[in-house]
């Protein structure tokens, strides 16, 4: 009896948490199909907002800018962050600690401080615009790449690199053939992390973008005064679904890798 009650209670608790977390998003999704501008009355099902969304050049421009920024900053952060991580990993213990601290600070620092600081810096040297936002995003993305690559480096057996050299490979060949494949998982998760962080950012983008360009977040912010159009519900729904798909695939892939690992460990000495 008590057991039954316990089970029921815990079920209710979990359901409640689920509702609190996802009900708002569910409402958003429902509203995106609502054939009415009202937020409280259901006017029937429609795909009209989706059609309007794709016809709205302002939103499409902002979406394009956002994706381009996310992709560009993620790729460049990986290109800078991965060699950086390798370098920091090779440092002495003290150097390693100092540089990991330097890496952590920008992540913990308030966005507004980073945003204003970068803006002050940029206005002296280059026109605010896509270039300055890209630079800003690269700046805050590099630490995420370093932090996701570092654990891979730490578990990697460095004598594997020496083994390739020993077997006749030059340093460049060794890096691409042996080190990089082993770091691939860390690099991929670093890339996705950077991508999401860039997509997500509002504060730093807001301070460094200047006039003329908008990402989704700054554009939506600009529209709040005029009232948010239902097209944006449609857009948010699409973004949510895309993120959900990426996350599911990622879980599936890494989950399978984990299972393989335990299997291997069982047969290892």
């Amino acid at each position, binding site marked *: 009896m008590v057991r039954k009650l316990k089970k029921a209670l815990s079920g209710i608790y979990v359901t409640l948490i689920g509702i609190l977390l996802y009900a708002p998003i569910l409402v958003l999704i429902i509203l995106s199909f609502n054939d009415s501008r009202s937020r409280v009355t259901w006017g029937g099902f429609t795909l009209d907002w989706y059609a309007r969304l794709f016809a709205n050049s302002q939103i499409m421009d902002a979406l394009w800018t956002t994706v381009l920024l996310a992709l560009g900053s993620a790729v460049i952060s990986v290109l800078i962050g991965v060699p950086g991580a390798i370098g920091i990993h090779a440092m002495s213990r003290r150097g390693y600690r100092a540089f990991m601290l330097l890496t952590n600070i920008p992540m913990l620092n308030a966005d507004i401080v980073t945003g204003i600081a970068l803006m002050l810096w940029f206005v002296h040297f280059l026109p605010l615009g896509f270039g300055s936002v890209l630079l800003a995003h690269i700046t805050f993305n590099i630490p995420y790449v370093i932090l996701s690559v570092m654990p891979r480096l730490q578990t990697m057996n460095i*004598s594997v690199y020496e083994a390739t*050299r020993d*077997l006749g490979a*030059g340093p460049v060949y060794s890096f691409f053939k*042996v080190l990089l494949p082993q770091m691939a998982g860390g690099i991929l998760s670093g890339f996705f992390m950077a991508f999401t962080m860039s997509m997500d950012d509002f504060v730093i983008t807001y301070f460094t973008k200047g006039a003329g360009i908008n990402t989704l977040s700054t554009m939506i912010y600009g529209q709040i005064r005029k009232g948010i159009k239902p097209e944006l519900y449609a857009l948010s729904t699409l973004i949510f679904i895309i993120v959900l798909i990426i996350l599911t695939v990622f879980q599936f892939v890494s989950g399978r890798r984990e299972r393989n690992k335990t299997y291997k460990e069982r047969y290892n000495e």
Partner: protein
Amino acid sequence: MSDVILQLDSISKKFDGKDILKDFNLELHRNEFVTLLGPSGCGKSTTLRIIGGFVKPDSGRVLFDGTDITNLPPEKRNVNTVFQKYSLFPHMTVAENIAFGLKLKKKSSKYIADKIDYALKLVNMEGYGGRNPESLSGGQQQRVAIARAIVNEPEILLLDEPLGALDLKLRHDMQRELIKIKKEVGITFLYVTHDQEEALMMSDRILVMNKGIIQQEGSSKSIYDEPQNAFVADFIGESNIIDGIMVKDLLVKIQGVDIPCVDTGFGTNTPVDVVIRPEDLEVVSKEEGFLKGTVTSVIFKGAYYEIKVLSDGYEWMIQSVNPAPVGEVVGLTVLPDNIQIMHKPASDDEEVVRDE
């Protein structure tokens, strides 16, 4: 073709201001099994890494077949290494691992396939070519690592404590197997270990190292039977090392007792270190022994008893097939042949004996 394949010419190396190798010299001959034996931090692994090309010496030269290769990167040297941590490429199969070096040398695929078969057979791993390295046991991984090194036909194979991570039984099997492989391929093996038993069993020649200096060099037997200083005696097997005075040729005084020995040339009344192996001491009645002492402990060790006898403040260790009564006064004897006399080092730093 000279018999010397590799020469280290007065190599010195410091790490963080600390001497790892000091004016180190070494010659390796063709088809020889040489072991560098010493405690961790003695410079043995650094020596190996200098030969492999992973560490540059601060001074001195590495000569391979008479040519200076000191500044040659590892990939240009005709030596291969078997690393302590296996270091197989986890994203390649066993066969791909073995083929790695050959592919870089642009060998034909027929040649590579033949070599893989040969190597797998050599290390007793036939049929494992398609396996993933991580699905293999530690011993199997190390076999693959050996195969991967050997297919490149190096003139010297460097082995850096390759059996260190294996359990005792497996280690013994692999030791025998390594000797077999060495005979089959007929190249020079330079082996690094801190395990004296392993060194004694496998090597043609052992170099006992400590503090970046060769303490003694010789065959397994000569190193075990005639350690030249207290470090070697202590490191190789278990020993009783005690102060003595060489009264004259053939007579040494230990704990105030004159005991006949076979050593000569130490002068008269010279302080010396005396080494007696535990298995060479015999427990007898107190009237018969040179030395008298009280049995403090007896431990059964399987093949023998380990007996400790306290005599004049020194605890002698004895290995005997017969136990002795604890607490009783007994005598100890030793054959003159089994007493090893060593010069006292003049200072700590001079714990060095060179063969020449």
